């Protein structure tokens, strides 16, 4: 009985730790829902990327590329390249989940993404027993999941009813532009961003929409040529799923 009470307490504590992240999660989810409704794919398919892929950058890239008519293999490759960071989050969580039941690992792994990773690490970093860390992670991740799927649903519902003169197809390029501009201060990221943008424009006519994948690879290569700066801890790539 006392374990259940502790679990509930830790679940709530994890959810509370996730609350500030909702400021990033909800607007991003709304933008993805809007784009799913406007894109030239079934809205349900765009919405399904939420619960199935649970990774905003990859979702938005997929919806954009599918809308532009990119070749299926290229879309999948782009999404997986964007999600490569999940392998590192997986490696970090592995040490906390060693010896846990399989069902827990299968569920907890599904919920790994930038905000849940950050909240989870916060929970496991506290000097309490690991089981309470699991409840803390689950509480944060569950709130994130509900907010993410709800925001995408709301965006998709609103997007379907809005008139064409609003040019909502321009919301995503502007959103992506804004996100890229906020990262220009870091010299290595700046190189990556300019190289990727330049290659994307130059390769606009590339067959199969391979230009986007080429541009991502060029951006990574350009970023790696910059001097690495020492960083105090692992930096999260995103502030939302």
């Amino acid at each position, binding site marked *: 009985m006392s374990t259940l009470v502790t679990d509930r307490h830790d679940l709530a504590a994890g959810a509370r730790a996730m609350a500030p992240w909702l400021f990033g999660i909800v607007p991003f989810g709304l933008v993805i829902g809007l784009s799913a409704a406007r894109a030239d794919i079934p809205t349900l398919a765009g919405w399904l990327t939420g619960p199935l892929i649970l990774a905003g950058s990859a979702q938005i890239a997929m919806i954009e590329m599918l809308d532009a008519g990119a070749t299926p293999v290229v879309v999948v490759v782009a999404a997986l390249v964007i999600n490569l960071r999940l392998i590192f989050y997986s490696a970090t969580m592995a040490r906390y989940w060693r010896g846990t039941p399989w069902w827990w690992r299968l569920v907890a792994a599904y919920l790994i993404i930038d905000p849940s990773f950050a909240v989870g690490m916060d929970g496991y970093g506290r000097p309490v027993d690991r089981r309470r860390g699991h409840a803390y992670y689950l509480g944060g991740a569950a709130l994130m999941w509900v907010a993410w799927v709800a925001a995408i649903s709301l965006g998709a519902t609103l997007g379907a009813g809005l008139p064409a003169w*609003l040019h909502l197809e321009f919301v995503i390029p*502007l959103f992506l532009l804004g996100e890229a501009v906020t990262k220009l201060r870091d010299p290595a990221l700046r190189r990556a961003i300019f190289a990727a943008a330049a290659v994307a424009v130059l390769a606009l006519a590339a067959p199969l929409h391979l230009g986007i994948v080429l541009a991502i690879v060029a951006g990574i290569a350009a970023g790696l040529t910059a001097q690495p700066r020492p960083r105090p801890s692992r930096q999260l790539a995103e502030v939302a799923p």
Partner: protein
Amino acid sequence: MTVWIVILAAAAGSYLFRLSMIVLADRYTLPPALERATGFVAPAAFAALAAAGIATACVGVGATQAAAPLAALAVAVIAVLRTGSGYAAILAGMPVLWIATALLPS
């Protein structure tokens, strides 16, 4: 049909990434260079998609039709640089796009 398969394939791949090291951590370690590279993926992808999206809106149309998205782009960049928030690009860029589209002859 293809759209559903693409989404399912990306979902399966992403789930395998999430599960990968939880299953394999005892046997493999990841090279630090790869970890550093992953930090550049999302900004590079965002920049590439934004550039391609805006360029597509401007290529093959008349100068007056390209002017509206370019004006929105310029205002969006300034808004983000001034506020430090990525969402300022939408909040400032979209009204400029609407006004410019309404004012400019199509």
